[in-house]
């Protein structure tokens, strides 16, 4: 039994709204911020919104596949964060910045 019979009181649509709000906040951050580390955090936020949505669908439908998918998303997020931070450290070593405005060097 769940701690609280959430399934009877909360509709799945509320979880869809909540996840979409979280995802949009992350999307806004990716578009708005300039510091690459914060961009990476906003992407993690987007992935977590997706995880929440998967878990909600999985629990409501009584199908474990969604929760397994969340494991794989976590695995990939961990690998991606490791490689991404390695790239950031490399960039920082060469430019002393983690600002994405440095990304304007290659132009036409």
């Amino acid at each position, binding site marked *: 039994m769940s701690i609280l019979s959430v399934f009877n009181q909360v509709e799945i649509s509320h979880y869809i709204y909540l996840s979409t709000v979280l995802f949009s906040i992350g999307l806004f*951050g990716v578009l708005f911020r300039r510091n690459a580390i914060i961009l990476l955090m906003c992407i993690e936020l987007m992935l977590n919104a997706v995880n929440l949505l998967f878990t909600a669908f999985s629990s409501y439908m*009584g199908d474990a596949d969604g929760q397994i998918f969340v494991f794989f998303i976590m695995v990939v997020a961990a690998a991606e964060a490791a490689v991404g931070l390695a790239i*950031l450290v490399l960039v920082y070593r060469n430019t002393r910045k983690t*600002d994405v405005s440095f990304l304007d060097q290659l132009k036409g």
Partner: protein
Amino acid sequence: MLQNLPIPFLVLSFLTILSALYVVTSKNPVHSVLALIFTFFTISAHYVLLNAQFLAVVNLIVYAGAIMVLFLFVLMLLNLSKESEPVKSNWWGIAAAISAGSLLLIITAAFQVSGEAVAKNPVEGIGLVKALGKVLFTRFVVPFELTGILFLAAMVGAVLLGKREKAVDALISKEESNG
């Protein structure tokens, strides 16, 4: 519509959205990391509500415990905590807000109009480690094994980027002109 919802769900959702907003808007990267960790805690609480207990624990261990510590570590290593970020113009902020907001509006409006529901069929104990382990190591064993390639590649890649090559520096600068 909101008044019919149980209080724990409302409070948790409110906290989640609030801390997510703080992650995005905070000027200090360390505050952002801490707010993100708090967001992960609230999301884990949502998992408990949703009967996904094992996932809640894993979420804390992997995200809050490992990934965010990596972020903090890099922030401290590069001493970025005080870095002042160049501010984008207000127009850029408005454009970002409009594009993110329109995605939100389109999706929520579409669900509002259609009002469709997913078949509700909760199963007891689905989120426990016993049930999940059985599925993961039977039907999902192939992707599970193949994540090995992913981790090996990520590890080799991180080492490749991180190591200093003094002896190869001359070769690299020669290659660079080619690059």
